[in-house]
């Protein structure tokens, strides 16, 4: 028990059955009490809550005016922790005044919380629009803010993390205005760079406390690769079907089991599989009856969720099928077995989800069932990747211009900027001058004041709306035809909403929709063919009906990428025939036409246009280019398929390395990218924009006319969140991992697990990609 914890709190701990702290808890508490900013990195269920509750409550016991602010990524987590905190406060009998502050807080509670609340539990979004812009109402809090707790730190990455970093910059400005300098305590799941992430988020040096002192039960990790069912195409049995065999067996054996699916749809499907699997063999009184299997995902009502959580804790729910909604620290107790259907996308998530299984006194089983995609297959063939590799980096870019500009406005609104003042680490003088030109701020007396009639925080949403899905509706099963069918009362109602009888076949994300459910596409779903009558792009609905034809459709996405500015590079690497660079690019994508391809023979039997709007994205990208002089002779005619195949491989390998979803990163392979990434002629202008399509004659001697094969990987968020810069640094590791993936895949000519979709892949692609990588890494081909 570290010194500095008041006796009353120690007594409260003992009343709750805690006599001593684990080493990591003691270290964290001591550091926080000493005023150091702390980040605690622990696996699930290691008692991280005490790491922050103890210093906070000690501070309040010592000084009743002291205040603390807790930030959780979701409202549900704040609720969960409120109970925990209250229980400890009651045990210590200290008259703790605390409540959650979010959209659900009643007005009367809000007022007293502002005046007298010791600990405020809220989320970054509420802090952003509800607290900071009205900070004068929170004088009591900000004048005496002693601790700021940031739980689930690892969730603040990417765009969301970049926003939150700016919200924290604003918080710190306001604290400084009121003369308080809070100590930050952050808790994170295991990621590769917790201290770096915390320091970027806070802009402050932090002490990192890693390694749990809590006892770990013995556990067995199984990586399960389903058997190959179609060798030539490299197709394996579906992971969901494997889970259907495995999970009911576990439940029948008496093991409380958590099954993680990747999507909400998959969770529902798995739930049905599992229940039907248990139905035949159990009676009503059996603990493993179908009703003891529950689903859990976003979209369930809060009360329903609480009931499931309680059922898991008391053991009446024997199995839960969940999305990553149960990955965060919601208290459900520990399970006996965890089954992951498909690789969750990151090592950190994998361990968070697997970590749900493991009781102190019993061995646990943790199973990862691999899917047939490239990521999954890489993990299945390289279990050491999971076991030995440090988990991923969490990246943020608080200085993303778009994010920064939004929060800078909110910050000026809250408090004027003094000339020369930095916003976190960002130099903002020029941006403020721009805002003045826009009539938003006004410079007077050495300060920048907000002067517009607007509330800038409301214009910024911390969580960029996840691309909404297109719903696929089968019109053959009922009303809901796109335009005034026989039963439809009007075209409007038919197009706007699926009729009662219409069946929703599935969903598809906004980026894939133009390729798979455009007008007249053949959409494949669980082996059935559907003809797309109409894609209603405005309403995000696709209307289909089942058909039986002997072809499928393949759409071509025309992606155009233009380099606007080169930040670093192009830089030739000493040992290899490749150049790396990163910079700012414009990506425009349009699905322009589709082909009808006959099954088995793969001959093109027709084609048609697709009329959908083009999308433009300004972002950052990393690219590597193969100078033609070196690659062309090696490759010959296989160059084009090789570049495409390698683009596919690199994209997936990059997702593995960056802890991002495949949709966060786009790949554009170009066979003749005109001089992109090649050394620029000295006279092309110093800092000016790099003009793509520059004269071939300006190319340095030795370069072939017409450019070089180049693979671009771009950040799929406007402005980028720092993925490209990181890829630039990881360049060599990326190529090495790509070489491994290609080398290890046993398929002869390429399969979904390595170079991408089977259809249309040139038989020479895999080999060509391998040769390109060999060029790039300087390694010999095996």
């Amino acid at each position, binding site marked *: 028990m570290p010194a500095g914890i008041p006796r009353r709190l120690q007594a409260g701990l003992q009343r709750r059955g805690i006599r001593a702290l684990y080493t990591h808890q003691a270290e964290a508490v001591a550091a926080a009490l000493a005023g150091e900013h702390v980040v605690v990195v622990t696996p699930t269920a290691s008692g991280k809550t005490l790491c922050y509750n103890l210093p906070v409550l000690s501070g309040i016991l010592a000084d009743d005016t002291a205040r603390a602010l807790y930030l959780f990524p979701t409202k549900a987590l704040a609720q969960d922790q409120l109970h925990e905190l209250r229980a400890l406060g009651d045990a210590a009998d200290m008259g703790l005044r605390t409540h959650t502050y979010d959209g659900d807080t009643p007005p009367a509670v809000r007022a007293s919380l502002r005046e007298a609340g010791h600990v405020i539990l809220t989320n970054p979004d509420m802090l952003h629009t509800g607290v900071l812009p009205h*900070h*004068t109402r929170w004088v009591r809090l900000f004048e005496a803010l002693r601790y700021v707790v940031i739980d689930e730190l690892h969730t603040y990455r990417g765009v969301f993390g970049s926003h939150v970093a700016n919200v924290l910059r604003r918080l710190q400005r306001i604290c400084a205005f009121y003369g308080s300098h809070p100590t930050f305590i952050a808790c994170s799941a295991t990621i590769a760079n917790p201290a770096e992430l915390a320091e970027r988020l806070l802009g402050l040096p932090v002490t990192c406390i890693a390694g749990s002192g809590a006892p770990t039960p013995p556990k067995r990790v199984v990586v399960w690769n389903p058997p190959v069912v179609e060798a030539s195409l490299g197709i394996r049995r579906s992971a969901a079907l494997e889970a259907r065999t495995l999970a009911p067996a576990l439940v029948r054996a008496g093991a409380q089991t958590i099954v993680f699916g990747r999507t909400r749809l998959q969770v529902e499907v798995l739930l049905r599989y599992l229940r039907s699997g248990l139905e035949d063999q159990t009676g009503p009184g059996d603990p493993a009856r179908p009703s003891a299997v529950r689903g859990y995902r976003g979209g369930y009502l809060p009360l329903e969720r609480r009931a499931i959580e309680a059922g898991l804790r008391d053991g009446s729910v024997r199995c839960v099928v969940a999305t990553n909604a149960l990955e965060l620290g919601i208290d459900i107790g520990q399970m006996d077995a965890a089954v992951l259907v498909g690789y969750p996308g990151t090592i950190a998530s994998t361990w968070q989800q697997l970590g749900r299984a493991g009781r102190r006194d019993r061995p646990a089983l943790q199973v990862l069932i691999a899917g047939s995609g490239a990521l999954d297959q890489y993990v299945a063939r390289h279990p050491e990747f999971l076991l030995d590799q440090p988990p991923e980096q969490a990246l943020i870019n608080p200085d993303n211009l*778009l994010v920064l500009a939004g929060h800078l406005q909110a910050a000026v609104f809250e408090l004027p900027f003094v000339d020369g003042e930095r916003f976190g680490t960002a130099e903002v003088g020029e941006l403020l001058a721009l805002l003045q030109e826009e009539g938003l701020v006004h410079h007077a007396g050495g300060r920048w*004041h907000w*002067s517009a*009639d607007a*509330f800038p925080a409301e214009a910024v949403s911390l969580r960029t709306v996840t691309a909404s899905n297109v719903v696929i509706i089968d019109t053959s099963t009922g009303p809901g035809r796109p335009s005034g069918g026989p039963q439809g009362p009007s075209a409007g109602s038919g197009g706007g909403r699926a009729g009662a009888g219409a069946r929703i076949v599935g969903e598809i994300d906004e980026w894939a929709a133009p390729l798979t459910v455009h007008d007249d596409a053949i959409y494949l779903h669980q082996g059935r063919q559907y003809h797309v009558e109409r894609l209603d792009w405005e309403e995000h609905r696709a209307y289909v009906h089942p058909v039986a034809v002997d072809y499928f459709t393949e759409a071509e996405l025309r992606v155009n990428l233009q380099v606007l500015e080169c930040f670093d590079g192009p830089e030739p690497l000493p040992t290899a025939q490749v150049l790396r660079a990163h910079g700012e690019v414009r990506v425009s994508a349009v699905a322009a036409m589709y082909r009808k391809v006959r099954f088995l023979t793969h001959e093109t039997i027709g084609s048609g246009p697709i009329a959908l709007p083009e999308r433009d994205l*300004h972002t950052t990208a990393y690219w590597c280019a193969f100078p033609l002089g070196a690659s062309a002779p090696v490759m010959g005619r296989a160059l084009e398929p090789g570049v495409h195949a390698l683009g596919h491989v690199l994209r997936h390998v990059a997702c593995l390395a960056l802890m991002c979803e495949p949709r966060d990163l786009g790949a554009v392979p170009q066979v003749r990218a005109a001089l992109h990434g090649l050394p620029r002629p000295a006279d092309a202008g110093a800092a000016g924009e790099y003009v793509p399509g520059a004269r071939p004659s300006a190319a340095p001697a030795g370069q072939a006319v017409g450019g070089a094969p180049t693979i671009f990987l771009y950040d799929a968020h406007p402005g980028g969140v720092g993925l490209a810069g990181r890829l630039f640094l990881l360049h060599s590791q990326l190529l090495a991992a790509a070489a491994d993936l290609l080398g290890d895949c046993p398929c002869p000519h390429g399969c979904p697990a390595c170079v991408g979709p089977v259809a249309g892949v040139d038989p020479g692609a895999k080999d060509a990609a391998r040769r390109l990588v060999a060029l790039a890494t300087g390694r010999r081909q095996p």
Partner: protein
Amino acid sequence: MTTALRQRLQQLGGLPAASGGVDRAMAADAPGARSGRGGPSARSWAAAGFREETPGLLVRRVRAPMAAGAPLLASTLALLSGDPRWAEPGEGAVWLFDVETTGLAGGTGTVPFLYGWARLDGPPSGGGWAAGPEAGLEVEQWLLPELGSEEPIIRAAVARLRGARGIVTYNGRTFDLPLVRTRTVLARVSGLWPDPPHLDLLHPTRRLFRHRLDRCTLTTASAVLVGTRRGADLPGWEVPERYRTFLRCGDPAVLGSVLSHNVADLAELGGLLWHLASHVEGGIGEPQDAYPLGRFYEARGCTEAALRSYGTAVVLAPPPLDRAALGRRARLLRRQGRLDEAATLWELGWRRWEDMEAAEALAIDREWRGRDLEEALALSRAALARASGPWASRFARRVWRLERRLSRSQAPEAAGADPGRPAPWASWLPGGVSYEAWQLLRQRRGSRPRAGPWGMGTTAAGT
């Protein structure tokens, strides 16, 4: 210097593509563009009518025409605001107060830049408050010469609020005063926040006259109720833009229309104050105003005045206010124990509108106060014949109970069945009503009673 940055932000979608720094051009073109530092000269301030009365505080004094009535009584202000502190003896002037701001969003980034005050003097020995000695309103305006030099104006405002006998605003409770309070926190002006009695006219205006106003803004209320007319006035939403123009060019002359807008607001505020005061002091403007006035009095606990207003409304107000007023008046009388008067009203309500609530209250009155069971039963039967929805089952139950009570009191031995035992069909008739009542309901709906579970004969014979 900002061109490249602007371009990048536009490409990312963070700025509208059309935006090209319009403000920069405007600022340069505006007359008397601010050259270097220093701000407007004393001469240009004087031209706009401002003097620096104390360091950093620019004041402009002007008279505004306003037709005031008799001096305002402290009790009237207490009644209008619902704050009894108005009626307590105290020192100081009452101020009409209205600010102009850089925006309507609220929060920490919205700055009040023009503080308009109009003084009401008094109370002269036992009288009430009145506008200045001459006709019209003495208006005082404080202008913030530059963002960031707020301290003098905030200190002065806090001092004035602290010394005030009370303040009168329109929507000041949620807008003007919280904004000023926010500025004191931001300027780190310490000390307790003064809390003088505050009459926010928005609330009584809304309660008394919502039925006549399509929008409850000061200008609408004043135009409809007092009959004021604003000439070529600056629309309120243009005020922030005018101040921004002033900040850029530094010429106080561009604020002319803002200053007169604020004066007009204060004059309307004063006019509305006198109108509301005379309204609640007893004048009933139009027939439809009587009912909300009665409700206002009732909420403030002025029972006699409320009864009077409701009484007027019963006679004069257009439907459905007359009927609503009757119900309110009768309920109020009943609470007062004036049951005769209440019963008279219920009777009127029943006869004129066949009001169900009135019929029920009257039946209760006849049964328990008048001890006249037969009339109570007759009334309930009549009401049941006209009732629908929940009222029907309420009256059906009442009829059944009264019938049993009557039969017991008239001939206890003649009653066939044991009256204490629930009728056999009580369990399946809606709400346990009597068979007669149920039949009555059926007949009224034009359908024959359905056979009960035991057939018609047995049940009919039972009674």
